[in-house]
């Protein structure tokens, strides 16, 4: 770990070369998706139908919303492995209060978001106040939140019939032909990106991630920034939990198990640098869409879904290696420009 950190370049601004490269990542993702789409369409023409694409996009949007939150944390050079447990716990809580008619739909959604925020804040406190490294803290809360989920849910499963009529319609309803879920994901990306680009918090987020020492010298309240990032990640995971209820309708204590891998993979594939300090939210969301299309393509081509896990792993490894190569280039470029 020490070595890795020492290869970091001097403090960078989010603009300039890095953002160009990041944008390239997004462009290259889109290019790969188009290429992939063309190849798959040759063997399975149904791939390019509107209904298939919208189905894939709806499912990917759930992951994308969580990935946007994860990206915020990763930009600060941390990681949140507990997102799937947050998604699961929020999903169950929302489904259960709806089943018990304790709250109406709007209040239940607000409660879900609030619960997600609280869980994210707990992570933030453990990391910033108790100074537990993020991986240990969130590996621990992964186990704790999931345990709470089991504890609350027991063997109860909220059936689709337990939800208010129409609640799950949001998963397939569209606005001008665009599924609501996709709109939600796009809104999350746009709001997040605006905050990152044009507010002081956004700049501080990148600064803390790219060079903590320099950030400290500049007087950036890095603990507060990291805490905020974890809180927002929790909030967005909560939003993903609400979407999860709408998408799947049937919720029990194990809902969303294993999703963290898809979320982290989406972030890494989307070009968010795991060393912190760079990456865009749009990239993370595109990463989620990309993985969704890969999963869909595998099924349509007739390849067993067992390949999926291996391909997730490969995609993560390729993406981080690519990041490292880009970083080295930047470093070399910086050295050159400085020596000039």
């Amino acid at each position, binding site marked *: 770990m020490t*070595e890795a950190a020492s290869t970091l370049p001097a403090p960078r601004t989010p603009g300039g070369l890095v953002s160009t490269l990041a944008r390239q990542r997004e462009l290259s993702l889109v290019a790969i998706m188009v290429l992939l789409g063309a190849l798959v369409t040759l063997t399975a023409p149904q791939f390019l139908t509107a209904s298939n694409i919208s189905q894939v996009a709806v499912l990917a949007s759930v992951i994308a919303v969580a990935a946007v939150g994860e990206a915020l944390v990763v930009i600060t050079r941390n990681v949140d492995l507990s997102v799937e447990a947050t998604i699961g716990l929020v999903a169950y809580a929302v489904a259960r209060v709806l089943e018990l008619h304790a709250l109406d739909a709007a209040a239940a959604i607000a409660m879900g978001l609030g619960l997600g925020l609280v869980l994210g804040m707990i992570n933030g406190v453990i990391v910033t106040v108790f*100074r537990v490294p993020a991986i240990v803290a969130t590996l621990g809360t992964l186990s704790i939140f999931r*345990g709470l989920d089991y504890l609350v849910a027991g063997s109860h499963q909220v059936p689709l019939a337990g939800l208010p009529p129409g609640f799950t319609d949001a998963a397939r309803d569209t606005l001008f032909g665009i599924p609501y879920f996709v709109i939600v994901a796009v809104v999350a990306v746009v709001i997040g990106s605006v905050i990152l680009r044009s507010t002081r918090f956004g700049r501080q987020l990148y600064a803390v991630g790219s060079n903590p020492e320099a950030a400290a010298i500049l007087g950036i309240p890095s603990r507060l920034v990291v805490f905020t990032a974890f809180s927002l990640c929790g909030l967005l995971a909560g939003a993903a939990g609400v979407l999860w209820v709408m998408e799947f309708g049937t919720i029990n204590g194990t809902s969303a198990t294993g999703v963290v891998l898809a979320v982290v993979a989406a972030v890494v594939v989307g070009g968010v640098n795991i060393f912190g300090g760079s990456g865009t939210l749009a990239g993370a969301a595109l990463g989620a869409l990309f993985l969704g299309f890969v999963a869909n393509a595998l099924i349509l081509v007739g390849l067993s879904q067992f390949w999926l896990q291996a391909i997730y*792993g490969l995609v993560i490894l390729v993406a981080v290696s690519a990041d490292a190569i880009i970083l080295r280039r930047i470093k070399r470029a910086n050295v050159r420009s400085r020596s000039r």
Partner: protein
Amino acid sequence: MSAVVAPAKGQRRWVTLLARWETLLVIALIGLVLLGASLSEFFLSARNFSNLIAALMEVAIMALPMTLIIVAGEIDLSVESMAGLSSAILGFLWAEHVPLEVAIPLVLVVGSLGGLLNGLLVARFGLLSLVVTLGTLALFRGLALIVLGPRGISDFPPAFTELGFGHVPGTLIPWPFVIFIALAVVLAIVLHRTWLGRQVYAIGKNTGAARFSGVRVTRIKVGLFVLSGLIASLAGIILTSRLSSARADAGEGMTLTVVTVVLLGGVNIFGGSGTIPGVALAVIAVAVMQNALRLASVTVEVQSIALGLLLILSVVIPTFAHQAKSAIDRVRGARPPPADSVPGGERAIS
């Protein structure tokens, strides 16, 4: 998070602190045994202890190389998937009528190669071990599913399944426990009594300084990951034997317990300190705790919460103990710089 705990620099202080950590573990273990005995009249039986140890042996065995890796400042999240891949390959080969005498060495070779992949990506290409091994966590599991698919292979010969489920003749000591103790002794000697072990600590404390003083950082790190892969595949073989069945999902979820056990054993997550005896004690403590909770009919969800809390506390407690100690030192005027003012950026990626 950058300004997280900076471990102490003085070796001696850590030795005393760790000595105390292990004492703490022994006390906790005695407490757990008393608790278990009060919870269930069946707790204090030889057979119960034999069972509770057997249930955690794969985790215990994987915790040993994990100790070395974390001491060296890295982490290997892929061990559970390597155990699964080994189980899958072993099952596949056995189903293809490859004799076990050939299949087992082959599986161990695959384990080493998987470790080599991790090691090269981390040490040679300078990638973050957390992300690399998260990737191979998915990759190895995926390969296991590709190799074996969802079927289970279970017609292994009794002599093989005896390895995992049987006991040393005339005793209630499970065979895997013998393997664990043997490995623990060897690795403890290597880590605590050899030049190589001191190099591992040196890397974990300060990689740059270690490199300047002639430690072959890359080579040692690669070696540690190869060892981790090798022993994870051994754990996979033992698991296959204990379950008398090879499955692609073998070992799923074990990494969390492995890391918890190692940190609970007093190993510093930032590297540079920790002992094998401490981890061995933690293994037994966790095994006793899980068994006591089960005998008390405490539900698994509570156990899951307890494990997560333990993981976090095992980092929080040493940190605060250390800060308290520094504060006391400061009051005495012995050591001017408080530990938490040292920028921990160098090993802060978490």
